[in-house]
């Protein structure tokens, strides 16, 4: 077990973890506000990746890579990311409005099953629209590498980690400083009281879905840049793992989602490297169970004392 390999694994784990963290943010925000597990989140990621894939192909064809080198490198990626964010935001709001809003007063399990229905719907619609044969997603930032001492780090990994940090900072700023963000926190604390204070709860929830889905689009693009095969089921397993990550860190907590995501990514890589590739998933979930036993509300979750 040499140090260099260890560092290499660590960086890979961080990169994988950053993607989990961005997905987990979507889960955690929606959970914090609407108290529901949005199982369709993973499939919104997949939709985002497809939109980006097709936009990049279309826009990429409009530029001649020889004469307009810069435009050919930047424009498709930029257009792809932006358009997929827009589409996913709309999709998220539409799903919320059609499927979840009518169930605001319903038991949480009913909402959970509806979310699963939406997830099936998105997967099957994607299969009909875009067929199930895999698409190979070329990284949005090219396949370049940087040399950091003895380590080689690809651009994709750098961008993923940087994007994760930027999103974290922006979200923290948003929830703490802006009016909308404060409204979101208020709704997640106490819906009734927030409404009495004049906060439009429905709009706040829709807004949360919009932000969560835009994040899902970014996560989708990053996920497929790092692991380039894209199929209609691409989002489901990362979705479940990110959900695990959100619980890991304490569901409802934004820094918790970051911490949970990063830890999950690193544990997954290390488990397959140093324990067994066959059992890596089992090890990840085993660690999760141990952590939840020690800290029943997740790493950064608040333990709410029940008052009698």
């Amino acid at each position, binding site marked *: 077990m040499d140090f260099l390999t260890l560092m290499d694994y660590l960086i890979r784990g961080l990169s994988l973890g950053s993607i989990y963290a961005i997905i987990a943010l979507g889960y955690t925000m929606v959970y914090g506000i609407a108290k529901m597990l949005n199982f369709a989140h993973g499939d919104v990621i997949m939709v985002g990746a497809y939109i980006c894939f097709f936009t990049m192909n279309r826009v990429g064809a409009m530029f001649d890579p020889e004469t307009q080198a810069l435009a050919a490198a930047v424009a498709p990626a930029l257009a792809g990311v932006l358009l997929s964010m827009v589409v996913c935001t709309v999709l998220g709001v539409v799903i919320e409005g059609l499927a979840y809003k009518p169930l605001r007063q319903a038991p949480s399990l009913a909402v959970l099953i509806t979310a699963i229905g939406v997830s099936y719907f998105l997967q099957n619609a994607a*299969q009909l629209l875009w067929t199930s044969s895999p*698409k*190979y997603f070329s990284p949005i930032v090219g396949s370049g590498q940087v040399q950091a001492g003895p380590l080689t780090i690809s651009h994709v990994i750098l961008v993923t980690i940087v994007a994760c940090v930027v999103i974290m900072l922006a979200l923290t700023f948003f929830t703490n400083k802006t009016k909308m963000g404060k409204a979101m926190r208020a709704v997640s604390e106490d819906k009734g009281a927030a409404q009495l204070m004049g906060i439009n709860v429905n709009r706040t929830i829709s807004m949360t879905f919009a932000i969560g889905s835009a994040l899902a689009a970014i996560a989708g693009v990053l996920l497929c840049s790092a692991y380039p095969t894209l199929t209609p089921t691409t989002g489901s397993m990362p979705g479940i793992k990110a959900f695990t990550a959100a619980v890991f860190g304490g569901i409802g907590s934004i820094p918790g989602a970051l911490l949970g995501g990063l830890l999950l990514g690193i544990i997954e890589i290390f488990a397959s490297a140093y324990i067994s590739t*066959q059992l890596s*998933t089992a090890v990840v979930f085993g660690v999760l169970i141990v952590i939840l036993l020690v800290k029943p509300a997740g790493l950064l979750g608040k333990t709410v004392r029940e008052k009698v």
Partner: protein
Amino acid sequence: MKKYLAMLLAGALSVSLLAGCGGDSGSSASSTGSAGSAGSASSTGSDSSAADGTTFKLGGTGPLTGGASIYGLAAQRGAQIAVDEIAEAGGDIQFTLRYEDDVHDAEKAVNAYNTLKEWGMQISLGSVTSKPGEATSVLNYEDRIFALTPSASSPAVIESKDNVFQMCFSDPNQGLASAQYISEQNLGEKVFIIWKNDDVYSTGIKDQFVTEAEALNLNVVGDATFTTDSQTDFTVQLTQAQQAGADLLFLPIYYDAASLILSQANAMGYDPAIFGVDGMDGILTVDGFDPALAEGVMLLTPFNADAQDEATQAFVQKYQAQYGEVPNQFAADAYDCVYALKQALETAGCTPDMSAEDICTKLIEVFPTITFEGLTGDGAGITWDSTGAVSKSPKGMVIQNGAYVGMD
């Protein structure tokens, strides 16, 4: 009130379902629905004649939806093209094809098979994938419906069933042939295997490969696995291979995961020789895949879409025109299945008004005797022994400049 309403709905649902299920078996309405979905005018044409018993009812199950649907759809389309061609050419032997979805699940495959049985299936194309294939082949055996599966390659599919035949190599045979090929051609000193732990196909090939490699004194320096759940990051497996000093990676897996391995190995600057099996075929057709990554990849496959012979080119052209994709080996195997059945039915002198059991008895006699020339046969012809296993020579291919080139 709420509860009763829910119950009322659920009740109404189940009643309507039961009514739908208990309906007249083999109703023509359902068969039109499915044949229509195959999307071809001629199939609807032949469908109407099915009612008066002038065509053979040919059924198959495969994953038409879900994660594995690429294989099922390919087989369905390949077979449909063959059926349409036969209809166009005219002749005594005509087929009506019906594929049912099994979502790559053994339990659903049994349901799909039973749906076909109710429809009145006379000859079966088995299942497309291995686990469902193991389940439906037992039913084929019990119901005495002859089956020729295009691609269910596990040996358990044909084991101790006299009326189930395979068009593809069995998994162990692929492992065996790969080990022999690597050893004969001296392709690598140190071999490392990356295989998919929860996949029957991958495990079957890998087990036999390891056994044979030992016998041939091939140096297998290690192996690493992944599962459906961890099919994203292969850095660890690749690093292990690199540290073991492997100069040849053996990948008994499908091309979707293989394309990830290739791109990640490339990003790591690790460049071993790569040897794949027939699941690797299709890698060049992945939308957006850079063929440069697959440069030098070797594979043993019975079919390649770039072959220059007339039959393959005509097939590829038709497939592309109808479905907008380059066909893979599943499509070719299913296409061959239909023609092989046609040949066997002609030889046996079967007619569409015969019962499934009579056809089955005749085909069991005939199949081991015929030699079939198909897309997947390498010109030498395809033969079967009485166990149902196929004998055809796999082609060693290497990818050069984004195209397959024969290795010998």
